[in-house]
Each structure stands twice: as C-alpha cells, then as structure tokens.
C-alpha cells in the first residue's frame, strides 16, 4: 500500500503564496538494472503527478527513470479559496494513488 506524506498549511490568507510538499513511497525501479541471475528487472516507476485545487489542475509533473525512489515534489501555489487539494500519482503496472488535503482560506 502506498504511503504519502503531504504538507499543506491548514489555513492561509487569500492571495498568499503557499508551499506544498509531497512525498510518496515508491521503488522507482529504472528498468536498466539486472538481477543477480542476469534477468532484466522491468521498469516500474511513477509516470505522472497531478495536483488540483477544488477540481482545477494547478500543477503537473512527468517523472522519468532517473528520479530517485520515494519521489519528493515541492511546489508553490496561490491560496485563492477554501476547499480541497487533491494529489494523484500514476505509473507503471496500473499504479494509482491519490490523497486529499483540506485548506481553509480567510
């Protein structure tokens, strides 16, 4: 089961620039490695990360095999209104994880 750690300020002033930090557990197997017996280890990575704010997409990232295990993605956005931030990660082998965090804007 994927584990995610997300840091979003619980409350913010309208118009304030807020920092969002996300960390998710994932092996990020590159597909370039071989096992002890010489067989290729198939690629298994997260390919996309999307963040939306009350349904509107505010941040998107494409991830590649060079990204380390347990990807840590930090970005900023402007606090516009109270609501929900939704984060989703999608990748190889049907990997899908999502998390929601509430924010209240005054």
């Amino acid at each position, binding site marked *: 089961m994927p584990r995610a750690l997300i840091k979003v300020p619980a409350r913010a002033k309208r118009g304030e620039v807020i920092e969002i930090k996300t*960390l998710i557990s994932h092996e990020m197997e590159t597909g370039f490695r071989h096992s002890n017996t010489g067989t290729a280890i198939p690629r298994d990575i997260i390919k996309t990360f999307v963040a939306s704010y009350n349904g509107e997409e505010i941040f998107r990232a494409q991830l590649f095999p060079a990204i380390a295990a*347990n990807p840590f993605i930090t970005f900023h956005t402007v606090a516009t209104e109270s609501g929900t931030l939704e984060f989703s990660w999608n990748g190889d082998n049907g990997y899908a994880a999502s998390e929601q965090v509430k924010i209240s804007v005054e």
Partner: protein
Amino acid sequence: MAVPSAAEIPLAERRSGYADMSAASKAMQDDDTANPGMLWVLDGEAAWRAKTPATGRACADCHGEAAQSMRGVAARYPAYDAKRGKPVDLEGRINICRLEQQQAAALRPESKELLALTAYVARQSRGLPIESTDARLKPYIEAGRQLFERRQGQLNLACAHCHDNNWGRKLAGNTVPQGHPTGYPLYRLEWQGLGSLQRRLRNCLIGMRAESYAFESAEFIALETYLMWRARGMPMEAPAVRP
C-alpha cells in the same frame, strides 16, 4: 598508519553525522513531511496495530500506545536479556516478541516489515539521550571495542582508524564521520531506502574488503552494544537521513 589508539573521542568532542550534512539534507531530516524515513514509520504504526493470525494479538494489545510505552526504549538497546544471557538489539527484541508472544514467524533482517516496526519504535525515542548503564553489558561492550579496534580485511584497517583517528577528514570527498549510531534505522540517500545499523556496518566491512558478519551474529550485537555505549548521552535522531 599508527595502530588504533586507545584514545577514544573525548565526550565533549563527539558529534553526530548530522552535523556534517548539507543544509538540504538537514532540512530533509528535520521536517517529518520531507523525511522519507517517516514512510516506514507510518507502515510501522500500521504493523503495530495489526493482529497476527495465530494469537489475534497486535503489539498494541500488550504495549498500548507506543508514544508512551516505547518512549526511550530504542535509546537503551541493545539491552541485556536475562533469559538468554546476552544482549539483544531492537530488531532481535521485536522478533523474540513475535515468536514468543504472537506465535508469528520472525521477520527477515532488513525486510520492509521489520524495518518499519523498528523505525516506529525508534521514532518514539527521538531527542532522548542514549543510555548505556547496565553493568551486565560490560563484557559485550569490551568485545565490541576489540572488534572496533581490530585490523581486518584486505585493506588491513580497523573501524577505529577512520572513526576514532581520522574523523572530520575526507575519504573520497566525503567527511569521515565519528560513527555514532544515533539515528538508526535511517534513510540513506545512497540506498534510496531505510536500513539498519547492521546494514551500515556491513557496508563499512565490505569497504574494508573484510568478510561481513551474519545479520544478528554475536559480533554485530557486540559492535552495536559498544557503539551505543560510545554514543551514550547523545540524542536519538531516528529515523535519521544520511547521504
């Protein structure tokens, strides 16, 4: 090179590997939402509350809330086990508890499950000073010290050559740390994962081109016991982050 000196690092001059890290790595360790070790702590918390099939008991059914019952526990391990007549480390204690109290299979060394439970228990001691006061540990501390100061491997090095005599100097561009086990299990960026103190010791032994001891062997336990005594009084950082 001089033989390993009997001169240990004076207590006041001891420093955690944390002090030699970059600002970015320090920030990563200090923020629980950026510290990847916390992913294992979350898994460990779930495992703490998970009931094992044979007895239907979870760790939490005996020990309650880890925040109280496990506070300071990791800071005094390896601890002397009177029943076995030898010290056991935290991983060993968890497996003894699983075998005897939960009638579950022992968890494999370095497995995700064992690291997660160990990280969760160790997290409860963060900031508390390492304790090594049990007189019964003395012979094991001595045995550990002898291993620490013994030359071994093709490079003919002892642990003490780097970590007592040359800490603070450079080895292949990296600062040689004093080697205090304040943050285990810890997230090593090079490993891209969490690892135990025994994994770290194994790493060093391979670097010295020496044959590593087996996981949970008497030699590793003695080394761990010595290292914790050597770091007595230093604050626990688990789960730490190291480059």
